[in-house]
């Protein structure tokens, strides 16, 4: 549906995006991840035809953005970073104007307006002036605008930025439901959002693609899935002895003690083996209870940080995680998971 081929955008000496290529299949939701200034918005602006690329091409539904811009623009609904709203218009006036410029047939206009306002729940606000709306509602009007004209492709630049958690969930659900019959590219800072909504994630840094894969595969590829963090109520030596006695364990290392009378051990299993059951049975018959057993899978946040901060990782596209980082991960891990849950529980 969308083909991006060798896209480069140069501002003077600075390359905002550097030789990017990817494709998005019909009906797919692709997430754009990257730190500020990575080139997310630039890429989106080029796909939508707002700015032009220095080199490379973009094809939407087989049409080239340079050769047949009208055909491409007809197929795309775009919500830029800052929703392009006319403050002095009411919501309804604005959406009618968008209907006009997107050449919606006059007899269908009413139906289209009703549909999009319903989808983002702004029907009650339709007589209000846009300048009097809160940021969340403005964002929704922007989203409604993008949906007008039945575009097959939606490009959403940080659609949930500035919204409260409840609104984020709502907009996210709207996007998910839109994903059933649209091809969507969305960018986001909130990584849990990307993993919740997107089929595939594209991580971009300094204008280059660092990784593109499904959220699960990214996690798997980068995770130390065979590593477990154990917290055991026992003394150092005893716990370590028992752990080392388990056949499937490859290495075990004490990382310290966080609670009184307990010990934390990072255990690495042999390749392809699940060590959880073995560990359980090993401690079952002893007087030393397992207080916690946690897989050291990386969250998307950690993957993101890893790929965007490690030069080596970028070059080799495979990441080996140094033992030193482990301790850091543990600390941030719990915190971030909690944050994520906060959002989704609301």
């Amino acid at each position, binding site marked *: 549906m969308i083909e991006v081929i060798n896209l480069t955008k140069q501002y003077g000496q600075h390359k905002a995006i550097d030789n990017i290529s990817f494709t998005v299949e019909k009906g797919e939701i692709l997430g754009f991840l990257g730190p500020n200034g990575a080139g997310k918005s630039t890429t989106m602006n080029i796909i939508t035809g707002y700015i032009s690329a220095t080199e490379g091409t973009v094809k939407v539904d087989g049409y080239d953005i340079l050769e047949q811009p009208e055909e491409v623009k007809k197929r795309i609904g*775009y919500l830029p970073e800052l929703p*392009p709203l*006319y403050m002095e218009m009411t919501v309804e006036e604005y959406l009618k104007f968008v209907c006009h410029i997107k050449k919606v047939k006059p007899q269908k206009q009413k139906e289209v307006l009703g549909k999009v306002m319903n989808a983002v729940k702004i029907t009650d606000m339709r007589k209000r002036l846009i300048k009097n709306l809160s940021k969340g509602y403005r964002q929704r009007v922007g989203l409604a605008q993008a949906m007008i004209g039945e575009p097959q492709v939606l490009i959403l630049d940080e659609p949930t930025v500035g919204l409260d958690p409840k609104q984020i969930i709502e907009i996210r659900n709207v996007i998910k439901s839109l994903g059933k019959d649209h091809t969507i590219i969305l960018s986001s800072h909130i990584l849990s959002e990307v993993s919740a909504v997107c089929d595939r994630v594209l991580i971009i840094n300094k204008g280059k693609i660092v990784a593109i894969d499904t959220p699960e595969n990214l996690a798997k590829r980068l995770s130390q899935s065979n590593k477990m963090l154990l917290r055991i109520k026992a003394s150092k030596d005893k716990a370590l002895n028992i752990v080392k006695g388990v056949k499937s364990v490859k290495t075990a290392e004490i990382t310290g003690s966080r609670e009184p009378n307990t010990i934390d051990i990072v255990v690495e299993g042999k390749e392809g083996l699940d060590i959880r059951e073995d560990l359980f049975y090993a401690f079952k018959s002893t007087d030393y209870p397992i207080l916690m057993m946690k897989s050291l899978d990386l969250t998307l946040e950690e993957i993101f940080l890893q790929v965007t901060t490690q030069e080596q990782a970028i070059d080799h596209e495979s990441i080996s995680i140094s033992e030193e980082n482990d301790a850091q991960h543990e600390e941030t891990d719990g915190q971030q998971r909690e944050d994520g849950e906060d959002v989704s529980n609301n």
Partner: protein
Amino acid sequence: MLAIINKELRNYFASATGYIFMSFFLLISGIFFSITNLFEQNPVYNNVLSSITFIFLFVVPMLTMRLIAEETRQKTDQLLLTSPLKVSEIVLGKYFAALLLFLLTLFITVLYPVILSFHGKIAVGEIVGGYIGFFLLGAAFISVGLFISSLTDNQVVSAVVTVITLLVLWIMEGIIMGLPTDRKSSIVFMAILVIAIAALFYNSTKNIFISAAIVIIGAIIMVAVYLINPALYDGVIVRIFQWFSLLERYQSFSYGIFDVSSVVYFITFSCAFIFLTIQTIEKRRWS
């Protein structure tokens, strides 16, 4: 394009701009009509039109300062430029909206000659010609304002630069009188012009060969003209600057002369600036 015209017209009246423009225009024209025609008991209406041309200096920036600058500042140009509309449709829509408001206001002033006609015979043909000239002059100024609005994202800058530019166009006749007409300065001026065009070309394309070619071809033409007919250089500067002397063209209309070449001139002038506006917007997307 209709959608843009509609939106811009609505915007003129949603903000105070439209009302201020109309009331200011009607107030000034009303005062001049009263003084020139009514109090003096003078039936020549075209005098009113030619004496109120100065209000373009104030009302044109009012109409045009916002048109494109505000879209750029609010980033609403993202909506327009990513919609299936062509850039030319957007620019023309905005131009026509300003033109329509101007025309509407001008239409109200038709009341004045109608009032005159109650008191005696008026020269209908002459007045219609005067109105056409006045409208074309305004249309040309609006195109300049539109172009300047596309150069900046600041309304105030847009307005100030428009006033200054219109002022320069205004006093063009005076400037022309002070310009040298001898051959030597003409040649120097042409040389500077050729180099400036080449520099501009280099700046936008970064192609040194074509820029150099422009300089060389320009030099060859200049030498050729000098060898064949050096008299062509006499008064070149004046002739070039005269091209921008809009008021001089307008004068013939106010005398009741309907000059087709002036009509063509005004339309060409407006088209040139609309074209430049479109190019500015396109260029910004490429750089």
